[in-house]
């Protein structure tokens, strides 16, 4: 007990925690510190500390070489930029079609079979979320060759998991009374879904889709680094030839693209919500 008493039973003192609680908390802190020290040792086993000390000089040197940006290079970037935006948009559209189907199979109130289809749909959604788009991109470039197609499929694969998870959580949270009302009019299961469930999830669906499109614009710029086309490919080319002013131009264009897509997303969300 946090209260300590004298031999007659009068209260003489109070601590915020009991002895056992304090010991338990100390043990947890000890474990955290031990884990941190262990991880630090493992992680810095191969670190060359001379490089780390030299890092500010390297950063200043790099910055000196990156500025001023080479603006006339921007003229050859419009085609890769269009590729990047196409990659993100087409990937998101394919993912929306597949993820909507999977979400209806995975939600516990709309799934037709709980022993086979629901675990399968959940497994597909989780597996697609666990692997990052860059890794899908690496695999697909090895399979399909470099180019925009690998990028579109990589973006689609990753977005299926993201959209599917948020969508099936939204489907599970709908109001059942509307569904019951529609069912009471004698509607078939397809009509129940169309008139009872879909109107309730439309705002969430639109928000999720636009949100994922925004994230995909950012990811597709990076996907080019593994060969999937778009601005990332131009970035990788410039990095490999050490043309730092061009790298700055590309980074600024990526920044501008992301700002525009965020503005579009904010407008769409404000209109819907």
């Amino acid at each position, binding site marked *: 007990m946090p209260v300590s008493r004298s031999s007659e039973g009068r209260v003489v003192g109070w601590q915020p925690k009991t002895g056992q609680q304090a010991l338990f908390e100390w043990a947890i802190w000890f474990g955290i510190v031990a884990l941190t020290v262990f991880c630090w040792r493992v992680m810095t086993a*191969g*670190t060359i500390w001379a490089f780390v000390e030299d*890092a500010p000089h390297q*950063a200043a040197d790099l910055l000196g070489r990156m500025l001023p940006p080479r603006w006339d290079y921007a003229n050859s970037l419009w085609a890769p930029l269009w590729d990047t935006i196409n990659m993100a948009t087409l990937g998101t559209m394919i993912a929306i079609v597949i993820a909507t189907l999977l979400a209806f199979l995975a939600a516990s109130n709309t799934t037709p079979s709980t022993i086979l289809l629901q675990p399968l749909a959940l497994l597909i959604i*989780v597996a697609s979320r666990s692997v990052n788009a860059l890794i899908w991109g690496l695999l697909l470039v090895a399979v399909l060759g470099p180019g925009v197609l690998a990028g579109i499929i990589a973006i689609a694969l990753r977005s299926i998991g993201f959209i599917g998870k948020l969508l099936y959580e939204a489907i599970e949270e709908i109001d059942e009374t509307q569904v019951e009302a529609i069912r009471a009019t004698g509607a078939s299961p397809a009509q129940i879904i169309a008139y009872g469930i879909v109107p309730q999830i439309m705002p969430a669906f639109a928000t999720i889709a636009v949100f994922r499109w925004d994230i995909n614009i950012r990811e597709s710029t990076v996907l080019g680094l593994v060969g999937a086309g778009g601005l990332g490919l131009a970035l990788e080319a410039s990095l490999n030839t050490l043309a730092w002013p061009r790298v700055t131009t590309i980074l600024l264009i990526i920044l501008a693209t992301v700002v525009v897509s965020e503005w579009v997303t904010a407008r769409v969300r404000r209109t819907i919500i």
Partner: protein
Amino acid sequence: MFGFGPFAGFLTLTISTIGFLSKLLADDIEEIEPAQVEAIRATGAGYWQVIDFAVVSQVVPRLVGLTAYKVDINFRESSVIGIVGAGGIGATLNTALDRYEFDSAAAILLLIIAIVMTCEYASGWIRKRFA
């Protein structure tokens, strides 16, 4: 700048986590109940005591939830960071793909998926239990 190896990846994830956690934690701190803060201040507590007993005790469950979420995200990102040279399992995956050893690459991918799924269940459990 910092040489190859996990140290560069550690710095990358540290910087991103600092930004993420500080923004969301600041939003959470602004939403605490002022009644508790006023009560502690009425007992004559100093500034640090007010923060320790009134603010921190309200914010800690949300901090635990946010940390578990961010740890889960970091596990996913660390496999990708290895591809650009920061070491770890991503570097092994990149090497296997470069050498066309697709069976090793498949094993590494399944391992990444299993670890990320475990991490996600663990972080979901922690968030449900403590936050």
